[in-house]
């Protein structure tokens, strides 16, 4: 992997980068204040922590709606469609090839940002973990209105337990994610890409049609 046969490609649009870092800030804030409310430590004080947590949570909820809107209007949702193709080679890469200096089996391209493992993880995050976290958080926040919403049968204990479990899952993801972004051709390559939008990738790697988010144009009949 030498840089003389690498090209700079524009991988992340301005909105994606904003969304990514905004979400980063919100998640960090929510984790810190959330664990303070959980009783792990004292930083802001319970009252301030609760207010920040509620504020950040509601902000995230609102922003998430914009993200979903962006996802579907741009067709970027196709980047999240899960696949098993090349999955084994990606797993083999991270468990074996990476130690031998082999190239990544699924290099990044504008139309194929996520390798199969990422697709699966990010789909689980965006479609399951984060929505569950937001839903339980919203319910937690609206506890006093449950009766009015016809949700009097809900148990705060259960909602709180799911919310806490979700927090641990997100924290665990965060740890692995922060580590994984160091596995580019340099330690900070992926981080820089998420800041500037531009990522250095190896030139000339063939991207299979199925890996691209674009629908294939119908082939002209011969």
């Amino acid at each position, binding site marked *: 992997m030498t840089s003389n046969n690498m090209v700079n490609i524009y991988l992340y649009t301005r909105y994606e980068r904003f969304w990514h870092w905004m979400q980063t800030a919100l998640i960090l804030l929510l984790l810190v204040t959330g664990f303070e*409310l*959980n*009783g792990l430590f*004292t930083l802001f*004080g*319970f*009252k301030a922590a*609760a*207010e920040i947590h*509620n*504020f950040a949570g*509601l*902000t995230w*909820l*609102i922003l998430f*709606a*914009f993200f979903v809107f962006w996802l579907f209007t741009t067709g970027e949702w196709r980047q999240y469609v899960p696949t098993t193709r090349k999955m084994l080679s990606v797993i083999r890469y*991270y468990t074996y090839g*990476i*130690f*031998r*200096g082999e190239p990544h089996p699924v290099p990044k391209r504008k139309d194929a940002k996520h390798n199969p493992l990422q697709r699966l993880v990010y789909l689980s995050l965006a479609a399951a973990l984060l929505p569950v976290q937001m839903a339980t958080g919203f319910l937690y*926040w*609206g*506890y*006093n*209105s449950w009766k009015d919403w016809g949700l009097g049968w809900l*148990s*705060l*204990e259960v909602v*709180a*337990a799911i919310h*806490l*479990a979700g*927090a*641990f*899952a997100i*924290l*665990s993801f965060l*740890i*692995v994610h922060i*580590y*994984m972004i*160091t*596995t580019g051709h340099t330690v900070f390559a992926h981080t820089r890409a998420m800041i500037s939008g531009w990522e250095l990738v190896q030139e000339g790697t063939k991207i299979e049609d199925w890996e691209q988010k674009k629908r294939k144009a119908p082939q002209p009949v011969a």
Partner: protein
Amino acid sequence: MEGCNRIWRWAAAVFFGALVLPSWCLAQTQVLDENQAPGRTMAQQATKGPQIWITADHSLHPVLQKTFTSGPEVTEACLSCHELAAGQFQKTIHWSWLDPNVDSKMKVGKGGLTMNNFCINLQSNEPRCTSCHAGYGWKDKNFDFSNPHAVDCLVCHEQTGTYKKFPTGAGFTVDQPTVFKGNGKTYKPPEWNAVAQSVSRPTRKNCGTCHFFGGGGDGVKHGDLDSSLMKPNKELDVHMGVDGQNFDCVRCHTTEVHSIAGRIYSTPAAMERKSLIEDDLAPKIMCESCHSRTPHKPGVKANDHTDKVACQSCHIPTFARVNPTKMWWDWSKAGQKKDGKPYQEKDEFGKPKYDSKKGEFRWAKNVAPEYFWFNGSLKGLTAKDTIDPGKTVAVSWPVGGKDDANSRIFPFKVHRGKTPYDKINKTMVIPHLFGKPGTGAYWGDFDWKKSAASGMAYAGLPFSGEMDFVETSYVFPITHMVAPKNKALKCSECHAKNGRLANLTGFYMPGRDASKVIQYIGWAVVFGSLAGVFIHGLGRYIARGRKER
């Protein structure tokens, strides 16, 4: 929820009228005054401009200028104009000392068989106890409760501050200057014309004469009522502070024909939680009456607490903040003597910690309350009720529960101690305490069995002859001594693992009750992830080193 208001505005500003906040948010409360909680504004409006309604000057009344020689004569003069007053008053608990909502044959009330763990019961001890009765002559069970002239108008209405009923005089004043051995003070006969002509609406001093000294001394009983409230500052009580609103007791304890608003045994102070907005003639006895149900600024989480947490729980962080209050009274230690004589010992507050007549005491200042679910109703033991001496006997206890919509988490002073009980009949015992040697009174003869036999016989109750002492508890709701808002409890006083509500279980409270299982698994996953990436990273580091070599 009002919380969404501010957030909504913020979101709207950032996202140019964002699309997604649920529409119900739009319909929420408007902020009227940004600088003050609406509940405060409401209460200030409800109490502004104290009006003087008085249209008579009692010092000009000829009937109050004649010569009086006793209290009942003054009462007679009062009733010559206020014909209905005695009849009204005699229907109230201030007169009967019995729960008006229970059949009087059941004798529920301090004038009946209801017990406490201070001086235990009035039966056979009347002359001492009834110095706080607004009447004259309740010296034994033959007192005539229908005699209008036995009503003591003056103790509640006179304003000279010189009218003193003798502590053991069954409600009477003295005819000659007399020293009371119990406190060494000299009691003087009243200047009848001066006190009679001074009458007015009851002030803190009138009410406090008895209610600040319940149990026979300053701050013995309540914890949130003692002589420090005669002239409190705002720091001690935001409502009564002479440097602030300067409320009298009757400002909140509103009165109709001598019937004063407040809790009466198992009857809550108010059956409905209404503010003056909903019912402008509602009694002003509750915080909600003037401050409304959501008194804090819109969006403040405390507004969401008012359905389950009483205002008092957060706004009275501690009671007995100026004067100490009695927390423990062990009658079983009574009777010790020095050189064959009864004696007293004082504690660091100058309060008795031992008294041969009464046993051992513990006093405390600045006490954090205990918290229980409370719907405004207190229940108590009578001398007829069966007890379980195997555990602490609750002599009185709050009624309520987490699933009762009328219950709130409420602060209490719990007075504990040891009081006598009948080992065979399993009842509490009414001891005959006050009396001269030879009468069976404990304070005369220092003999518990005689005292118990005498007291129980007087009350018409069986006594087996076998007695011992059992640990007891007695509760007082804490509702006075409301502190300034900046002294209200911090969230973490309760929202914590070992907070003030640690003993109130059965419901989920954030900050206290997070699932242990999920925390164990959660941290295992988090540390597992950390270990995983560390090992993987180490592997990469080593592999790269090898390759470079």
